């Protein structure tokens, strides 16, 4: 566990929904410039863990440290303000609006002048900034004024990721970013994740697709039945090791807490 100077660190975090122990004393950390793959079977607690970090659920027990300071995230805005951005699987884009409008949704730039409510949107500034952002991520979109509804799934995912970067976060959580994407589009998105790492961000990727995770992750954390059952360096680990940790069969990684 690389806890020296971790950007985001969870210690012994537990979360219970009624009789279900969704998270059971989970330790988890992300460093700057690191991609962590979070894997596990359905109901293993991946989404709960991400939602706990993102402020949708608050942890029952345990501590969360961000840049070395203990933090409390009780609502999504807390996480956003701290610099933790989340891109959910359903992306939450407005299909009827263009790329620029979606990237700036809820954070529109307006022209200077009196009377905020009647002031004009600064479309030129937004389009300029959105263009810079997308080109810095090497995202190709036919036009900044294309309606998002007409884009491919991969392009939509890239727009959603770009939007999450507008507030200059330090950590980005991606929930199933490659689900339902074709091969070339998956490649685009994985390349984008690589560029997030190059920018020095801490990236957490939830995925069911182990080959995607191996392609992009530096470290792979396995959850099983609410417990962290494995923490592997991606290099030198085989899929069999990870599958074993996910299913609970045989040996697990260096964080073994297996009970059979």
């Amino acid at each position, binding site marked *: 566990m690389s806890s020296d100077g971790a950007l985001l660190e969870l210690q012994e975090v537990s979360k219970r929904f009624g009789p279900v122990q969704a998270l059971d004393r989970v330790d988890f950390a992300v460093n700057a410039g690191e991609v962590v793959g979070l894997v596990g079977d359905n109901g293993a607690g991946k989404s709960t863990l991400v939602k706990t970090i993102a402020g949708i659920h608050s942890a029952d027990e345990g501590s969360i440290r961000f840049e070395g300071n203990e933090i409390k995230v009780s609502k*999504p*805005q807390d996480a956003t303000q701290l610099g933790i951005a989340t891109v*959910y*699987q359903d*992306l*939450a*884009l*407005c*299909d*009827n*609006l263009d790329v620029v*409008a979606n990237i700036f*949704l*809820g*954070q*529109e730039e*307006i022209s200077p002048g009196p009377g*905020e*409510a*009647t*002031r*004009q*949107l600064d479309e*030129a*500034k937004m*389009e*300029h900034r959105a*263009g810079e952002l997308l080109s810095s991520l090497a995202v190709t979109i*036919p*036009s900044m*004024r*294309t*309606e998002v*509804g*007409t*884009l*491919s*799934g*991969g*392009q*939509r*995912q890239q727009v959603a990721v770009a939007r999450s970067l507008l507030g200059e976060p330090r950590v980005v959580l991606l929930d199933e970013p490659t*689900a*339902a*994407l*074709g091969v070339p*589009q998956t490649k685009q998105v994985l390349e984008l994740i690589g560029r997030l790492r190059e920018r020095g961000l801490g990236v957490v990727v939830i995925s069911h697709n182990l080959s995607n995770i191996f392609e992009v992750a530096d470290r792979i954390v396995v959850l099983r039945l609410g417990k962290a059952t494995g923490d592997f360096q991606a290099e030198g680990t085989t899929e069999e090791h990870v599958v074993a940790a996910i299913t609970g069969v045989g040996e697990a990684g260096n964080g073994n807490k297996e009970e059979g």
Partner: protein
Amino acid sequence: MKGEGAATPASAAGRLSFVNGESVRRLVQGDLASARVVLGLVVIWIIFQSQNDRFLSAENLTNLMLQITAIGLISVGIVYVLLLGEIDLSVGAVSGLAAGVMAVLNVKHGWSPYLAIVAAILVGTAIGLLQGSLFSRFAIPSFVVTLAGLLAWQGALLQVLGSTGTINLTNPKITGLANTFYSDAFGWIFCALVIAGFAAVVLFGHRRRVAAGLAAESVPTLVFRVALVATISIVAVAVLNSDRGVPLALLILLAFVVGMEYVVKRTRFGRHVYAVGGSAEAARRAGIRVNAVRVTVFAIAGSMAAIGGIMAASRLLAVNQGSGGSELLLLAIAGPVIAGTSLFGGRGSVWTALLGALVIGSISNGMDLLALSSAVKFMVTGGVLLLAVLVDAIARQQRQAAGRV
């Protein structure tokens, strides 16, 4: 919540990447839709003119402008509601009630016409706030809330009018709203201001884009747009001047169309209206106060209905038990839909309120000139609405086939 916006990632994944140019898409989806309606309007005008050569006379066209003012103003508010993907069935009744309030306050209670008008508009605003709050706080479908409103406000109008049933308007400030015409010189000055203003907006927008290093429209396109607006303005003023002059009612309608189009297309609030109409969940997660947007939109619809009702009363010189009733509501909704505003939310513009009112007003006016019966009028108007929605639906299917596959 909105069926139209629900492209799943799975279906998105099946699409090949997109080759059509942006300008092509804009033309197919937006400008062409407007062009189609304008073309339809031209066809309607040619048909009526061929049947009765008084149709395109200056006098009749001026009458047409006066006839569409009330419905156009109500439609402006309806456009906002439609952009949310909601409906407001109470606007007709609200327009009648607001006119009734104005008449009672001015005629029976001797209020100044200005105060009576402001009070009437505030009644519309308050009703919109109430209905919008009920809709958003308790998640009652807007259809039901405003249907209840339709009944209740009709009753309120009867209550306000009392036993007399009809109140005649005599105050020149109120009757002047729909019966004032300006001199030829004023008409031309107004025309020059419109052209200069439009050219300035186009030029300023172009400069900003160039300064920001963004792709901008070519100069011939800009010149064409300004020339088009200039031609329409000059022809319109020339026609109106050859009859009674530019009517105040038309200026009021145009001012609201332009102002509310600015709000919906250029301000942060307007952007949020489109966002909520496109995907309320996405808007909520982006930090937009969805319920505040909804309540504001219903308040706008109520206010615009009141303003439309005041203009209708001014033109009729009276408020009676039938004010705001009969087909007014349905035509006010049909207009923007005919002209291209989607019933499913997120797509459309305030401009369609004017265009739709022109189409519906022309049909109604033309059939009156031909002395057709109400029976025929209703059936033809219904047919035109169906045709317009059908054309729109077919265009959407083609767009999906062409742009999304």
